[in-house]
């Protein structure tokens, strides 16, 4: 089943599911996959830190990187995923406005992600981040395969 992950959203899936998220610009797309339990999750977080609007973060933690990433991992653990087996991949965190981007949202999203992963002893298996192009992700939960569409080209991540 195709499951679409909207902006500021997080979904999990099992064998047979394909998690899809479109148009990652400065947003972070984070994929977590357990090859043994065959479960996975995809997060599409918009902004780096929940401290700018804690109330919104309580209602929808997937909107922010610092609350969305823990939510993603916890949800995959609840489905049977184990930390030591997880494969983690990141995409997005670009600057679609080019040099005119004064808030550097993409860069900050990436920094907050890397800090969280470092604290929790997790390395990225693969990443496609930065630049001005928008990215779309198809994450096949059966195999953990990620198809990245970017600038009209498609390829595995």
């Amino acid at each position, binding site marked *: 089943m195709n499951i679409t992950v909207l902006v500021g959203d997080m979904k999990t899936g099992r064998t047979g599911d394909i998690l899809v998220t479109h148009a990652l610009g400065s947003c972070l797309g984070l994929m977590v996959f357990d*090859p043994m339990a065959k479960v996975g999750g995809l997060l599409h977080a918009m902004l780096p830190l929940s401290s700018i609007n804690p109330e919104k973060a309580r209602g929808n933690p997937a909107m922010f990187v610092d609350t969305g990433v823990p939510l993603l991992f916890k949800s995959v653990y609840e489905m049977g995923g184990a930390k030591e*087996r*997880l*494969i983690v991949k990141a995409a997005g965190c670009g600057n679609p406005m080019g040099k005119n981007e004064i808030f550097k949202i993409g860069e900050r999203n990436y920094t907050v992600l*890397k800090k969280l992963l*470092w604290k929790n*002893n*997790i*390395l*990225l*298996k693969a*990443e496609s981040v930065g630049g001005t192009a928008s990215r779309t992700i198809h994450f096949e939960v059966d195999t953990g395969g990620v198809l990245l569409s970017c600038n009209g080209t498609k390829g595995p991540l």
Partner: protein
Amino acid sequence: MAVNILIVDDSGVMRSMIKKSMQMSGLQIGEIYQAANGREGMDALDQHWIDLVITDINMPVMTGEEMIGQMHERPDLKTIPTIVVSTEGSQTRIERLKTKGLKFIHKPFSPEKIRDTVKDVLGSEVFNEPNA
């Protein structure tokens, strides 16, 4: 096979960061030895069996380059895979190190960069899944 690693850097914080990166990487690690300069590095190489050296360049007492020079004069040490992690900006110096068969990583580095370089040097057989 578990890999014994020697980390040579005059900054304790940097040695801890490299150590943590190695522990996160999924590499099958035996022992991790640390040294604060090239002289201490040579002492560690004399005392322990080392499979991989990760070293800085600019250090007091003895630089990384001098240590690598001494290692290359010793038949028992010259084949140990060595990765240089440094802020070194001089392209000529970097090229000179690369011609000696060394890998070079610029500071600041990402832990993924260290993992990928070690995998490049030692092969993925010494890594545990799923990070391999």
